[in-house]
């Protein structure tokens, strides 16, 4: 009870300090001091501190299973393991918003600490824009989603957390993803502040690049964690389903990636200034839109904790205010920078980054239309439709070919005017890639030509980045690592989709099912009792035609609070393929439904995403020792 009280009052204190901080910084903005007032820094710390206390209060309420708190009652249970009691804190609507607020206040405090070299007015204005967002979130939480609501009389037992959320990957997925989303809010505020102060410069680009990198890395990792979870927990046997909820996280990622490349042009050449600002605004808007769509119950998913229209409307209004504010500022203060007359050379790094941006925007519009069109159609005509994976695949996959080719050659160019060197070598590499792809794919019956071209271009990027990694050491190591990671990602995804194999059947205990490549025997089932669930473990023996025997034990868990059946896939991971078996049951039937899959190169998908993040990390730390 005490923790709950402390949490609630800290939250109100936090809002109080937040308002006070805004007042002090407005005064500080207009005074003649060259430096930022120490009070601003102190207040910003206090704002963060009280949100931390508030968040800790909520965590303690969860740990102590204080069911007098409505959020805890709705989302926790005494038999839940401690780890999931803690992660349950952000596994619900109210708690996750408090986490969002926590990251917001942390980031603005860090921003103030880390931006000492920047002009005072720019720093304060960034803080002020950020305060608008922070205060908005404070009000949103206190008004519509208070995590500290009382329940009286105090219930004996809570309702429990949806078992599919009780998972280590999902425990850290929201915090990491939020770091990315919230990081984009700092970029948003900083870009607006910089344009108002006419401070968009190389120095600014250098400083904001770090924030872009941080949020980009976190967003990438966050998306990957969600994807890993979907792979082993949902039992759909894949890692990406073009589900609207996945799409809304991919959209800000695309704009952020575009921004990450553009900021380099700004840093080196002071070009594309307006475009950088537009991208900053778009990234943040997309992050907020994602939150709105996911939280408001418009998209059906595990992320939709409650369908409360008031919340949706609040976010929508808040979003509109922010978008209009930012667009207003952009058009009012936007000045054509004529001092720097840029001469565009067609063959330059600049152009290649523009091409990268064109692709990013194209992918973005495909996903945006695919995700929002059904919603609009429903609102306008009441017609219910859905847009499935074929739509995205058809529009995105063919464009990967030019994208990969440009990506292979683009980084080779110089900033201003350049020509392609070592033409012979580049052509040779392409021929090798093409032969290799054909050799690998020669047994493929359908779409041989298309797949060969696609995989050749992926191999091309792969070889070129490998060559750069080893030969042109330290020239731009982080970039080569990230691009190498990307080529590996595309290759793994392509091989995964081409060489994977699946059998689905219904089977009774003791039976044997024979298919083209071998047979599966369902040997027995075993029952186990755990504190918060009972499990049925199936023992399967898989014989493949080559004589290899695999034992797999997928599990069905029947959770007691709330009563939900989940299936835990059994996955044997090897370097070249994952063997995946998941089992399901239909109430009251003797048959078990099993799905057996060989997923080629699955583990490389995760490794390559990690490599991409590693490239980002290296770039983040690179500048520090160089200077």
């Amino acid at each position, binding site marked *: 009870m005490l923790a709950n009280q402390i949490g609630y009052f800290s939250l109100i204190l936090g809002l109080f300090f937040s308002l006070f901080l805004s007042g002090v910084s407005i005064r500080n903005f207009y005074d003649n001091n060259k430096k930022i007032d120490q009070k601003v820094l102190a207040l910003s710390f206090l704002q963060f501190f009280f949100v931390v206390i508030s968040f800790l209060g909520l965590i303690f309420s969860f740990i102590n299973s204080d069911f007098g708190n409505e959020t805890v009652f709705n989302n926790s249970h005494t038999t839940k393991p401690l780890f999931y009691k803690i992660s349950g804190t952000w596994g619900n609507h109210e708690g996750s918003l408090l986490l969002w607020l926590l990251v917001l206040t942390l980031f603005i405090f860090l921003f103030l600490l880390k931006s000492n070299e920047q002009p005072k007015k720019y720093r304060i204005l960034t803080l002020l824009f950020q305060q608008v967002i922070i205060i908005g979130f404070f009000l949103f939480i206190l008004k519509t989603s208070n995590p500290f609501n009382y329940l009286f009389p105090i219930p004996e037992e809570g309702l429990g957390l949806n078992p599919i959320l009780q998972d280590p990957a999902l425990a850290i997925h929201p915090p990491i993803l939020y770091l990315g989303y919230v990081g984009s809010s700092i970029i948003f505020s900083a870009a607006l502040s910089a344009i108002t102060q006419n401070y968009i410069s190389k120095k600014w680009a250098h400083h904001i690049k770090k924030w872009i990198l941080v949020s980009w890395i976190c967003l990438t990792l966050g998306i990957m964690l969600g994807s890993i979870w979907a792979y082993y927990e949902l039992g759909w046997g894949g890692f990406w389903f073009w589900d609207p909820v996945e799409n809304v996280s991919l959209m800000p990622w695309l704009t952020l990636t575009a921004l990450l490349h553009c900021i380099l042009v700004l840093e080196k050449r002071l070009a594309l200034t307006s475009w950088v600002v537009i991208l900053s605004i778009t990234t943040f808007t997309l992050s907020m839109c994602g939150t709105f769509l996911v939280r408001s119950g418009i998209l*059906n998913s595990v992320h939709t904790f409650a369908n409360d229209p008031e919340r949706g409307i609040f976010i929508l209004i808040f979003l509109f205010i922010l978008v209009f504010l930012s667009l207003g500022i952009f058009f009012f203060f936007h000045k054509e920078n004529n001092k720097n007359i840029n001469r565009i050379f067609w063959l330059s790094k600049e152009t290649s980054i523009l091409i990268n941006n*064109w692709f990013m925007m*194209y992918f973005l519009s*495909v996903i945006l239309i695919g995700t929002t*069109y059904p919603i609009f159609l429903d609102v306008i005509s009441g017609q*219910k439709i859905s847009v*499935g994976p074929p739509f995205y695949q058809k529009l995105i996959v063919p464009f990967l070919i030019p994208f990969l080719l440009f990506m292979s050659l683009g980084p080779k160019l110089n900033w201003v005017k350049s020509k392609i060197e070592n033409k012979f070598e580049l052509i040779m590499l392409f021929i090798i890639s093409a032969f290799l792809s054909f050799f690998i794919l020669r047994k493929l019956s359908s779409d041989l030509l298309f797949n060969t071209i696609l995989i050749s271009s992926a191999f091309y990027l792969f070889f070129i980045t490998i060559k750069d990694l080893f030969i042109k050491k330290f020239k731009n190591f982080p970039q080569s690592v990230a691009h190498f990671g990307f080529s590996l990602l595309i290759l793994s995804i392509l091989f995964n989709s081409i060489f994977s194999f699946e059998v689905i059947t*219904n089977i009774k205990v003791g039976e044997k099912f024979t298919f083209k490549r071998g047979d599966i025997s369902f040997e027995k089932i075993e029952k186990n009792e755990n504190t918060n669930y009972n499990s049925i473990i199936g023992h399967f023996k898989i014989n493949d035609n080559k004589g290899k025997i695999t034992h797999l034990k997928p599990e069905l868990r029947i959770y007691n609070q709330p009563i939900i059946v989940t299936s835990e896939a059994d996955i044997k991971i090897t370097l070249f393929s994952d063997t995946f078996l998941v089992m399901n049951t239909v109430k009251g039937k003797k*048959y078990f439904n099993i799905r057996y899959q060989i997923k080629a190169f699955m583990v490389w998908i995760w490794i390559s995403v990690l490599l991409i993040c590693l490239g980002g990390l290296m770039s983040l730390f690179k500048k520090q020792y160089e200077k």
Partner: protein
Amino acid sequence: MYGKKVKLRALFLVLILTSVILSVFLILQSLKENVVYFQSPSEIKDLVEINKKKIRVGGMVKEQSIIIEVDKVNFIITDFINEINVTYSGAVPNLFAEGKGVVVEGSLKDRNYLVATKILAKHDENYMPPEVKEAIGEK
């Protein structure tokens, strides 16, 4: 007549505009082909023509209607006014059960018979997709 810069800018604009128009056209075209409509069993009864296009059907799984065989699952979806028979071979999600809401994707053989390729998973026992609510005429 015009400076080099202006020409360049115009060229740039034209390039961007054409590419935008082209991609929007491409996206809309492909949207038309790949959209999956949602229909209730009653709406299917009223269909004028049956085509092979994929649709989604939602409603309740009729009590006592699930029959499982080695290679397929048969069941009936009802909106309490009309029914449709479904045959499905593929992975069955955990929350699929008699008397519960369901959404399936597949193509119609005739007005009473659907060959499903996918049963859409739900994440929550108590959660009822809005389409299903509407299909069974939410009380």
